[in-house]
């Protein structure tokens, strides 16, 4: 791989061309990504009010430690980030098992199941707040229809069911995506491997445990990490459906940052910046930690 790169990359360094190619991207990156990141960290050590900024040292961070709403938000986001990957990848594995045997119309199923992930969280959020509607939502109507009418409830309106209901929405959205990636990974394997497994005619559990999971391990781990990262950032869906309510039960770190920065009338941008900074460090360490663990785990395998 390294030698191939050496051959590919041209030997001379035409600086004029390099700078011209890179400069626009770097300018945009520095102005609208790097500088804002630095400025957020800078904010976090200040009170940032419309009339000016005052240095307060670690005061924002000290406040953060004592802020029960922040910890509530962290708890909810972590539950979401840990439950979702398992649900999404779990459903995707079961679906892969179904599509793994050659069924007619596999292409159609693949395209249909992928659809939810292409829709914005705004569309999905509104749609599912209707599905969860107490009086006429599809979920409660189905429950009443099969005789479980006393299970019907306002799913997004109760502190005990709101977060699970939202987690379910993201799983609905992303299961198809995970399935498609998983299928692509399975199809990229040499066909003899799969055919051999077919011939052995082991049961569906055997196929899952001895064929699909081990052969797509790298992809599965990747999907778990990807789903985890996605849920650590989640904002849109909560904002459209519950705005963090009822009683903080669906508050996530993102919605709390937004509320403290732009909804509460404190006008201080320093404190929400401190939350964002802490969360940034946590997300980046989690990603680095997970990818290190995964690479480490793979090495141990051999």
């Amino acid at each position, binding site marked *: 791989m390294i030698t191939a790169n050496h051959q590919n990359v041209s030997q001379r360094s035409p600086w004029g061309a390099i700078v011209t190619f890179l400069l626009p991207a770097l300018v945009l990156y520095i102005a*609208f990504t790097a500088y804002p*990141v630095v400025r957020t960290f800078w904010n976090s050590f200040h009170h940032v009010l419309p009339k000016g900024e005052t240095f307060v040292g670690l005061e924002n961070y000290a406040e953060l430690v004592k802020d029960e709403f922040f910890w509530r938000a962290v708890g909810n986001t972590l539950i979401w980030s840990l439950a979702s990957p398992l649900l999404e990848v779990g459903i995707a594995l079961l679906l892969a098992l179904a599509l793994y045997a050659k069924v007619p119309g596999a292409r159609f199923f693949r395209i*249909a199941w992928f659809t939810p992930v292409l829709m914005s969280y*705004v569309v999905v959020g509104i*749609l599912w707040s209707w599905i969860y509607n107490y009086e006429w939502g599809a979920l409660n109507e189905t429950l009443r229809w099969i005789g479980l009418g006393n299970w019907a409830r306002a799913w997004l309106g109760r502190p005990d069911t709101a977060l699970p209901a939202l987690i379910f929405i993201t799983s609905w959205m992303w299961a198809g995506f995970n399935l498609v990636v998983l299928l692509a990974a399975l199809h990229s394997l040499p066909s003899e491997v799969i055919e051999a497994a077919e011939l052995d005619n082991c049961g569906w559990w055997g196929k899952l445990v001895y064929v699909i999971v081990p052969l797509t391990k790298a992809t599965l781990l990747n999907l778990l990490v990807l789903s985890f990262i996605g849920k650590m950032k989640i904002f849109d869906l909560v904002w459209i459906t519950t705005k963090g309510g009822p009683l903080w039960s669906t508050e996530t770190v993102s919605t709390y940052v937004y509320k403290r920065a732009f909804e509460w009338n404190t006008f201080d941008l320093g404190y929400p910046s401190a939350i964002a900074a802490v*969360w940034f460090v946590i997300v980046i360490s989690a990603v680095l930690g997970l990818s290190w663990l995964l690479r480490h785990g793979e090495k141990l395998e051999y």
Partner: protein
Amino acid sequence: MRWRLTLVMVILGFYTMFAAGPFAWVALMSVRTTTEITANHYAWPKTWHWEKFTEAWFGSGYNVYFQNSTLVVCSAVLVLTVVGSMAAYALARYRFPSNRTIYFILFSTIVFPPQITVIALFQILVQYGLYNSLPGLTLVYVAFQLPLTVYILETFFRRIPGELFDAARIDGYGEFEVFWRIALPISLPAISTTVILNTILLWNEFLYAVVLITDESKRTLPLGIQRFMGDQLEDIGMIATGLMIAIIPVVLIYAFFSEKLIKGMTAGAMK
């Protein structure tokens, strides 16, 4: 063995209803009036009220939201494609100090939570008079999608055999000609993937828009829908029509480029 296939097909059918059913439901509601919907939420439309789309378009401001979204997304994707492919080309094809450092920093940005930039971007755009303006939102969108675009294109540029470029240089092509007349045409499949992917992702973007845009006349579609939903919570029929206006372009793109879109979306997850 027959019954097993039947069982599998039944399960697949159920899951398809579960995954796509909600969209069919919205589509049906979008051509029914709220009165009809309230009478029965799951009935087939008796008369198809296509006029609701005209009503939403002209009467509820969806024409403005749609135009704003189209303008922002198209200009952002255009800039992204030009700037992103140039940067990806430089990173993939030239050896220079700090090449890998730049690549690594850009690449890591893909996992950044957006909150780390959103507050400061608000301050910066206010300072430079770009707050609450479509050009401001466009620039933010370009920066937001740049890392992913560069990542996808860099991978592609890197795979092109070097002999091709050497041959072009021997023929007397300058560096820009090599990029413009060799690299770009070859990379058209990868470039179109990023174009389609960025279009969908930015069309759906909500967080930056909600922070950086406040004017009614500058709202993008997701903001417009949220606003309409807030004002007319009970008017389910019209909300459904609005949702369809946002969904239809996505469905059209998906209908024509499903494989490309799937490839783009899953590019980061494959290993």
